[in-house]
């Protein structure tokens, strides 16, 4: 049986990495947003699953995003433990994979199905959607969106990998 202290310390390292990584990721996307490079607004996108009040939705969305960021950091940790190795570059690689998955499946295919206010290509005149769907590679939000998402997730992954303690 392993000593519980290292396990707790490992968990905290993943959670801390996830928190800091999500903070940096969010800041990068927000900065790109302010520079007019993308219309991606992850907080609005996530928050409008539960509220159609934009202000409240954004606040809730940020909380969701940080929770998701820490859950993914734990999943990265499971992977690091499975391969018995962690490093910033392995984290960055996982971040890149996660970005592609997010842009092609998670936000493009799964979120519109469960999101009550987002449109899909099948939304017809008998429904009124409020939130524009991201589209493949999130290109609906601007041509740079995927590259920004990719870069931000690589940085996120690198931070999670760098802070991980096995």
């Amino acid at each position, binding site marked *: 049986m392993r000593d519980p202290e290292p396990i707790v310390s490992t968990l905290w390292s993943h959670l801390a990495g996830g928190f800091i990584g999500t903070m940096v990721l969010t800041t990068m996307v927000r900065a790109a947003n302010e520079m007019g*490079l993308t*219309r991606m607004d992850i907080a609005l996108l996530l928050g409008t699953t539960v509220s159609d009040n934009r202000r409240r939705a954004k606040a809730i969305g940020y909380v969701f995003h940080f929770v998701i960021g820490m859950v993914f950091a734990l999943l990265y940790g499971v992977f690091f433990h499975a391969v018995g190795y962690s490093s910033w570059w392995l984290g960055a690689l996982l971040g890149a994979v996660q970005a592609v998955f997010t842009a092609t499946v998670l936000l493009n295919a799964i979120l519109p199905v469960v999101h009550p206010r987002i449109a899909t*290509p*099948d939304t017809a005149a*008998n429904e*009124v959607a409020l939130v*524009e769907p991201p*589209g493949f590679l999130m290109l609906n939000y601007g041509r740079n969106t995927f590259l920004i998402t990719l870069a931000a997730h690589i940085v996120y992954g690198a931070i999670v990998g760098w802070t991980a303690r096995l």
Partner: protein
Amino acid sequence: MRVDGYAPIEDYALIGDGRTAALVARDGAIDWLCLPNMDSPSVFAAILDASRGGAFVVQPSIPFDSSRRYVPNTNVLETTFTTARGSVRVIDALTLPDGRLEPMREIVRSLEGLSGAVPMRWHFAPRFDYAAASPRWDTRNGRPVATSGAVAMAISSWNAGAASQHDDAVGADFELESGARALLALSTAYAEPLVFPTRQALEARLAYTISFWQSWVAGRGYDGPWRDPVTRSALVLKALIFAPSGASVAAPTTSLPEEIGGERNWDYRFCWIRDSSFLIDALLELNCYDETRSLFWWFMQATAITEPELHVLYRLDGGIGTTEHDLPLAGYRGSRPVRVGNGALEQRQLDIYGALFETAWLYSEGKHVIDRDTGRVLARIADYVCTIWQGPDSGIWEVRNGPFHFTHSKVMCWLALDRAGRLADRGELPARHRDRWRREADAIRAFVEGRCWSDALGSYSRIAGSSDVDASLLMLPIVGYGDPRGGRIAGTIDAVTRSLRHGDFVYRYRADDGVPGGEGCFLNCSFWLVSALARAGRVDEATSLMDRLVARANDVGLYAEEVDPNSGAFLGNHPQALVHLALVDAACAIRNRS
């Protein structure tokens, strides 16, 4: 009656599902359909090239007359063909999802024999990618399937003859007796497998589609004169709202000509910021609160990349990339070029800032809250307007020989800053720069009153210092600039009437605009004249003109962009949202002052 294979533009009725739209001619031909969306490449474009464009025809195979209407309070079309051997009714619809597994897009054509025994034919000739690609034909599940790239179309038929393929088309002849029913369904897919519906599912979906449209109309609240034309306009506008994003397309067609044989042929399958304030106003008048909010959210999302600078138009998906280019199609009755994309994207048009702020103002007046982030964006845009209003632009009519100092553009900049100030008063915009907005609004008003007024005309002029007028000046009382019952507005209405009116119709302007060729009268200008007259207190004059204009719609209540004032023939893209928006505004303006 077709000329060289082309039906008159006024012969077309619209069916739509909020994602794509089709034009159906009086003779039963669907001559325009884009897939999967309104702004996608066409699969039927016989309206732009009668021999190569592609169409889906259902009609008697002997001489016939036809009469049409929409199934009451729906976007479902009903055509009755009358022949020497009897009559047949055809119901056409782009069906709406009813919760069952349905194709990505679906056209249902339901036939019923009303009397006698009528020889009928159907002919399905898809031409993909604006007729650039021929279909590949296969048979799946016993149905003919045409594919090209990511698009697939399957034609299913019941009691409509044995389909046979010839000349890159599929069709059949059959006879429909009194009381007999036949059904044709066009199922389409884009980048996914086809879904083959059963007859029962199709009939259920058609019934659902009719009931949805009727319940949608029942939930709207227009109470006033010209109820039927206003309701039809509401249905057209709803069909032109692209449901996957909430944007509204200006018209579902491209390159229907402003002059037969001319080259003023433009692609209108975009969302113009300019139309937004009209649309929000109309949606609120019609109690379409969900659509209002969806449209406003779309605008704030679409403009996020470019703000504080706005683009004239946006793609339906909110993007801004579009290049104008010509297609190798013959054009409607030889009217070339056929264009896709729109070069107006590159222009600076200052009036759109006024339209955006009027949109925000109306949204706020409609008891919607403008959130803090949106308020900050609007404040940045108002600051930007302060820095650009003194420059020239291409104006509301998107002239290609400008830029000029258009009076209408200046007034719309005034409107932007006036509304920004009022929104700041309400606490919906940060008030930091409110005084500056008010100062600049006063400066714009001084410019308009000083430089854009012509004593010789007794009217505001088209351009600062010019000696002519244009129909956009009718917008001044509509947007609330000046005293609508004052001498200057009255003089302007009279000057526009003297210079530009032709019977019940109004030309945009007489000046050169940098594009060769002529054009008809823009129908929205006629309805603007009605609105301006009503606001100026000349309600009887407005009512009389409105009655005559309403009678000039086509047989199913639709309007194209323009009309030839001599023949009454429609010109330009069809049906046009702006005309129907202007109709709603005119009806409300008279109602509110009666």
